[in-house]
């Protein structure tokens, strides 16, 4: 009798794995790669201005004073247009926002800002994604909370929607 039952074990195992595979296929895949740099100091960098209208960005610009938002974006990135009003709202709340423009041209940066508003105090140009890779960012847009000591405290992946504004304000408060 026990032997008979044992014969069903492989079939049972197969059904279990087939069921597991079918279930996992219906689940959303988490596409985000989180930065492992949260809690780490920003690496050293110095970027040229992304266009003539604003100064460039270096690590030293992110040290001292209040916590800031570091926005990784690009003029060719569509979700960056969607988050522009939220960046304006954060700026209106007194938040300093600095930007890094990924693989971008000065004329495109200027045109984007003229059209969608300019919430930035500085924008550095990262034409080969060097600083982006150095801080563990894997796409645009991403927004990092940097505290006054230049330590990365929080990472927001994807565009900032209206519901994320209070969240970022809270993280900025926590980083004080």
């Amino acid at each position, binding site marked *: 009798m026990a032997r008979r039952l044992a014969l069903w074990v492989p079939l049972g195992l197969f059904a279990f794995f087939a069921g597991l595979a079918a279930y996992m296929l219906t689940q959303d895949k988490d596409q985000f790669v989180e930065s*492992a740099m949260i809690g780490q100091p920003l690496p050293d960098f110095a970027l040229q201005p992304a266009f003539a209208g604003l100064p460039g960005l270096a690590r030293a610009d992110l040290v001292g004073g209040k916590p800031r938002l570091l926005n990784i974006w690009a003029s*060719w990135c569509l979700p960056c247009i969607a988050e522009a009003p939220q960046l304006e709202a954060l700026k209106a709340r007194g938040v300093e926002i600095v930007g890094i423009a990924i693989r971008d041209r000065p004329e495109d940066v200027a045109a984007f800002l003229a059209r969608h508003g300019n919430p930035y105090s500085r924008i550095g140009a990262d034409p*080969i*994604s060097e600083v982006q890779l150095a801080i563990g960012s*894997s*796409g645009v847009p991403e927004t990092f909370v940097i505290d006054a000591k230049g330590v990365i405290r929080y990472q927001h992946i994807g565009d900032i929607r209206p519901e994320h504004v209070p969240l970022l304000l809270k993280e900025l408060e926590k980083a004080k």
Partner: protein
Amino acid sequence: MIRALLVLLAALIALPALAQDTMPPAPYAYTQLEDPALEARAAALMHTLRCLKCQSQSIADSDAPMAGDMRHQVRSRILAGESPEEIRAWLIARYGDYVSYEPRVSTTTWPLFVIPALVILIAAGVLLRRLGRRRGGAGGEEA
């Protein structure tokens, strides 16, 4: 009808163009290192690093601009004298184990290494017992 189709076609062409940048690739994105030995080391490493934009491809396989920028990092660091494992560690420090296709033994991955060894041991045990029984032959039990 044809007009509508043309508009649709145009939209299909326009969308990818909008979602990509127009910048030239990084210097070492598509250019091999002069020294074949260094290029071989870089290439071997690039085949075991995950593209972050197209996560089922290695950076050696991907044409995503970001994969090109990662290849530039790998090649220029190799050229500067870093070892492939140092570069892998640099990337893992930024993106976690996920960026590497070469699995490490860690607190979460050890069962992957231990379970196959256990299964082989169990299979070997069962096989030995069966063969032993058959060779003993006294019971004469087949299959």
